[in-house]
């Protein structure tokens, strides 16, 4: 086909351009992901959401500090993913913003570990639920990963692997955020290890998937 013909076809073809497309698609993806993750936690994960324990925890400051970790990663990863979904937009400062929660939680965790007596450090890291934690976060991020990848596919990422990784991290952060409803652990070294490990799985999956399915 001649390029001139293609141009005529494209110009005559229907399209619904809207400037809010990026915010809209990713926004709906996030909303769906949060709902799906909460439902998965409530009905699929054995044990569900412990309502009594949770309502007792809601009044403590440390619970909200814990929530701040995945919440800040959710927001910054969304920002990075959003920027990666548009050609020619520089991620720039959003990278640093995304890195900040990781750095902060590690500094806090190391401080706590150094201040603690040597024989209790293991307990601070492993808590009681380290086996379930990483696995559950990864599990909760699966529906989010699908929903967000779907949204990303309809945008225009020019660096597919990177965009996929950012999408995966966003899904993982949503999974971790949801898991806070269940998780009884209140020590920073625990979050710094198992929460971040749980988010790594969807991030890697996202990078691998991105390379394959984020073509446009």
């Amino acid at each position, binding site marked *: *086909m001649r*390029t001139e013909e293609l141009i005529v076809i494209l*110009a005559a073809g229907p399209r619904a351009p809207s400037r809010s497309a990026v915010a809209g698609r990713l926004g709906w993806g996030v909303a769906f992901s949060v709902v799906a993750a909460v439902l998965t936690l409530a009905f699929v994960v054995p044990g569900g959401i412990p309502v009594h324990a949770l309502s007792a925890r809601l009044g403590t400051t440390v619970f909200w500090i814990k929530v701040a970790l995945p919440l800040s990663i959710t927001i910054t990863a969304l920002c990075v993913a959003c920027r990666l979904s*548009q*050609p*020619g937009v520089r991620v720039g400062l959003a990278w640093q913003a995304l890195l900040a929660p990781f750095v902060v939680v590690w500094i806090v965790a190391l401080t706590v570990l150094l201040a603690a007596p040597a024989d209790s450090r293991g307990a601070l890291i492993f808590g009681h639920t380290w086996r379930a934690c990483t696995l559950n976060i990864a599990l909760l991020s699966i529906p989010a990963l699908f929903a967000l990848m779907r949204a990303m596919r309809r945008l225009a990422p020019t660096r597919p692997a990177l965009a996929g990784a950012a999408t995966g991290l966003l899904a993982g952060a949503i999974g971790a955020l949801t898991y806070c409803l269940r998780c009884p652990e209140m020590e920073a070294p625990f979050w710094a290890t198992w929460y971040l490990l749980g988010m790594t799985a969807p991030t890697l999956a996202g990078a691998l998937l991105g390379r394959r399915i984020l073509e446009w």
Partner: protein
Amino acid sequence: MTTLASMAPAPDDTGRMQGGGQTAARSDAEHRLTVLLESSIAGDRQAYCRFLGELAKHLRVRLRKHLWRQDADLEDLVQEVLIAVHKGLDTFRPDVPLTAWISAITRYKLADHFRASARHGELFQPLDDDVDAPGASPIDSFEARRDLTRLLAALPSRQREPIEHMKLYGRSVAETAAKTGLTESAVKVGVHRGLKALTAKIRGKTHEN
């Protein structure tokens, strides 16, 4: 002209271009194209037609520097970029310079193109394979081989229409189903079978040559 023609791909130039475009005065061509694109997004089809036409010219100048088997691949790639621009139209932001946006799309399609040629072993063909039989201009044989319209026309409408709606116009499965009156699964099956048939046809013709 200078800005668009000289946007050679460097690995990290997305940021630089964005910053540069905002501070420095934009070139005439970029300004004209941006205005055309703005009116296209507002719904002016003629402006869109002119925008794509002018963009195609710039792309030819730019892409020629990067290609091996010049003539055949060039138009192919120009069309790929135009389709990508069309599909990604709603990711264009007024605060990003047009050059940065187009440049990122072009770089992406160029990388895609090199990956695909590497997969098919074309990058390592001996040079004399590039010389076509005397008399036939490369562009003619290329067009004869890959004339998308003709290939599409040979498909049954159950396959052709879903492909046109979904792959060319970027509609969703549901929209395509509504437009064609087919069920959603029939649309998916149609696209799948149609693309398979097209691949087979293109392959068949390539072997004949």
